[in-house]
């Protein structure tokens, strides 16, 4: 296992200059994520227009992996629908753990072109290429929680 797989330059860049970091006035939803093992914390705030995420920002403290992940997650889901964001959650989870999340798939086929969920909403969304930088996390099992903390908080904000 190589450190360069984990600390890719785009991750280090997002750690140093996080996007969408700070408070969000008038947020519709707010969820706090916490990793009691290492003390990392993140708060995700969303503004929604119907099922569309019109704005998303995060605050918190944590390691480079958790900070970069929160930064890139917010960039990836802004402007997406809830269904698309949940598909991205599934895809990201699979990317960093090497396995699809148990019982969280949307109608089974997240990521397959043309799929929609029970309410007819499109779940189809292309994974932003930069998120692939987190593939290296799968080789560092101790760091998976760092990478996924902000995503879990997002999921909780969307589905409760």
């Amino acid at each position: 296992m190589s450190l360069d797989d984990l600390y890719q330059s785009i991750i280090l860049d997002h750690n140093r200059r996080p996007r969408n970091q700070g408070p969000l006035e008038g947020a519709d939803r707010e969820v706090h994520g916490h990793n009691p093992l290492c003390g990392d914390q993140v708060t995700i705030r969303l503004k929604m227009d119907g099922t569309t995420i019109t704005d998303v920002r995060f605050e918190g403290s944590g390691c480079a992996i958790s900070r970069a992940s929160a930064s890139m997650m917010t960039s990836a889901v802004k402007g997406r629908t809830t269904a698309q964001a949940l598909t991205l959650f599934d895809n990201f989870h699979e990317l960093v753990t090497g396995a699809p999340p148990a019982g969280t798939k949307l109608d089974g086929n997240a990521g397959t072109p043309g799929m929609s969920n029970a309410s007819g909403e499109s779940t189809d969304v292309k994974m932003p290429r930069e998120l692939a930088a987190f593939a290296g996390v799968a080789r560092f099992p101790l760091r998976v929680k760092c990478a996924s903390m902000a995503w879990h908080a997002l999921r909780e904000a969307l589905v409760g």
Partner: protein
Amino acid sequence: MHRSDFPLLAASPGLHYLDSAATTQKPAVVLDAMREFYETSNANPHRGAYELSGRATDRYQAARERVARFFGLGDPDCLIFTRGTTEALNLVAQAWGRRELEPRDEVVITAMDHHANFVPWQQIAIATGARLRICELTPDGRLDMDHMRELIGPRTRVVAFPHVSNALGTVNPVADIVALARDAGALTVCDGAQAAPHMPVHFDTLGVDLYAFSGHKICGPMGIGGLLGRRTVLESLPPWQHGGDMIQVVQDEFSSWNVLPHKFEAGTPNVADAVGLAAAVEYVDGIGLDTILAHERHLLALATDRLAAMDGLTIYGPPAAERSGVLSFTMADVHPHDLATILDADGVCIRAGHHCAQPLMRRLHVPATARASFYLYNDESDVDALMRGLQRAAALFAVAGSASD
């Protein structure tokens, strides 16, 4: 030194184990002693009327006597074996606190306590309505003894404090705290988890009423430790857990309790681990705690000097000469968790996090620190490896910074 005594270290030449404050590696003599017990003496002690059970009982008693001697405890029956420090401190907080504490009573602990001491007292205070008072720290990470003097008064019923801070390495002035507590008529409880492995502890002259320790931090197996106590104090405490071995007579309506130490050791005891612990303290005594202390101080001073010379490094706690085996630090712009991963890639094991001391981390205004801790098997090559890893981390994060600026 002594690295070859430890099978895990001997089998891992590239490993730089700097997390002995969390748990120490185990020498072959400890592993051999435990195996030998199971192979030659295994039976349930204190029960069977056959020779083998008697042998197990003898081995358990011999282990108690050996460990008591390690701690300068003249009366081995005043050593209660527990799972470790956490269980020993819970035993005291529950057995003593539940009966003794009332609303308006005060419990004094410290801001540098490990959760193992902090939380049991916090919870028994909540349950009994007693008031929890927390002794604050000086800026350099010592107990603020002026504050301690203010806190300890006529309402103080117990003062519970660490001998050595697990997160900072601060060695606390036990005698001064005991003197204040004794004047107030308060019970003294000392968390010795981080002191016992590193310095001679002579319970009978230390002055505290109760002293808790963990075997796995003294080269012993996980799952055994103990509570040392003054006989009058231990005899006055009600039992904590009930079951076999701890009773004298069980009537339908009531029961009576066995004598020390059995009153506090309900159920089949952890004999093999006690035997392993006895072998561990024999091993540590063979090297000598004074030798170990001097060796650690040398490595700690060396590491502290070299880290302090690095840009962006903050070291927590008092000067190296006044600390025990622990180097707690942060590096600007590199989170401790990232440091630990980067060091791990070079085989350097350090701890990153809140060190089970969240109240302390809040007071240091950091979410976490990195902690390197030293023991008898470390040497200067471990310090070299730590430095190389930190320089690598600094370079990795600095390169990223300049690329994006």
